[in-house]
């Protein structure tokens, strides 16, 4: 019982921390949905030096997010949110793609992460 209370307390603390982050200068959350065969959005805009939290979900099948030039990679499993913290240290337009084969259309599943100075 005591253990459950402790866990509940810990979860509440985490939720509160996340809520504070959303409103008190924590990383900006950017939800990204990976569907067959498109990222929504497929263009993600951030500012150089800005801390963001990419939050991926895939409602259909397992997908991947890979931005090779930025070294960002996430496996996106249905039913879970894959979180990827990121702070851009260079401006530019960087390709990302799905790197988990997901069907006929996988090859065209890509987008851009645009970092402005």
């Amino acid at each position: 019982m005591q253990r459950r209370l402790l866990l509940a307390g810990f979860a509440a603390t985490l939720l509160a921390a996340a809520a504070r982050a959303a409103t008190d200068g924590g990383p900006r959350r950017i939800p990204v949905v990976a569907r067959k065969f498109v990222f929504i959005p497929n263009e993600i805009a951030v500012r150089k030096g800005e801390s963001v939290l990419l939050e991926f979900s895939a409602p259909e099948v397992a997908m991947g997010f890979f931005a090779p030039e930025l070294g960002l990679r996430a496996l996106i499993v249905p039913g879970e949110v894959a979180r990827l913290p990121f702070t851009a240290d260079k401006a530019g337009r960087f390709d990302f793609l799905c790197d988990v084969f997901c069907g006929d259309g996988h090859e065209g599943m890509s987008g851009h992460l645009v970092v402005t100075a």
Partner: protein
Amino acid sequence: MPADFDRRDFLRLAGVGAGVVFASGLAGCAARAAVPSTDFHFVQLSDSHWGFDGPAVNPEAATTLARAVAEVNALPSPPDFVVFTGDLTHTTDDPRERRRRMREFKAIVADLRVRDLHFLAGEHDASLDRGEAFRELFGPTHYSFDHRGVHFIALDNVSDPAARVGEEQLAWLAKDLATLDKDAPVVVLTHRPLFDLAPQWDWATRDGDQVVAQLMPHANVTVFYGHIHQEHHHRTGHIAHHAATSLIFPLPAPGSQPKRDPVRWDAAQPFRGLGFREVERQGAAAFAIRQYPIGEA
């Protein structure tokens, strides 16, 4: 020194007439190999994508594979065997349709007049069911065999949809390589490139570096693969990697444009960029590659 091959170097190395693209391997070191020379040749077919429907890129999708089969059968000297380096079929979400396409593919290539056929899976064949249908119809997705003094290793880097060879197969590879002399000629067959050719186009194997690390102690290794629908030649150290053309549509040169869209069909040059290759062993550890465009064999 750039890792990509210089075509002129190959032509010099090959020292042979028109038609042969180049020779690969350590020709100058052939005498060091432990196994005596026993020349032979085989044919590599790749990426037929049976079941693909896209008239703008190949209005002859229903006939291209059969043309290739007929042209292999018409070679002046029949190959010892034919190897298919993956994407035999085009992907589908429907397991029954996947198996139907595989059976149709098998029926077409059954007309090849060769004794042995060796099949590898591509991600279109195997990634959506982790190789289940492929194994039912074609057998294991990784294996090795010996042919006239050359050790062939077929590696599966597609049954994992994230393009990993995986720990289990890496352990199998280590055991397989441990049986060989370090100077034995080795040919690795696989679908995806084992090196980072164009990660932004998913032209890579996530743990390919671990495969290459295992191969590095072996002096005479050549890799033949598919996936990128075009000829491409590269070295990682002393290991040569040769990508094959497709039998459905060509793709643009690695990283040459924003998207890896198929090259559209050119009615003035039908079947342009499609074909197969003949690989001839010359000496213990050297291979000459002759490219056969569809319609010109």
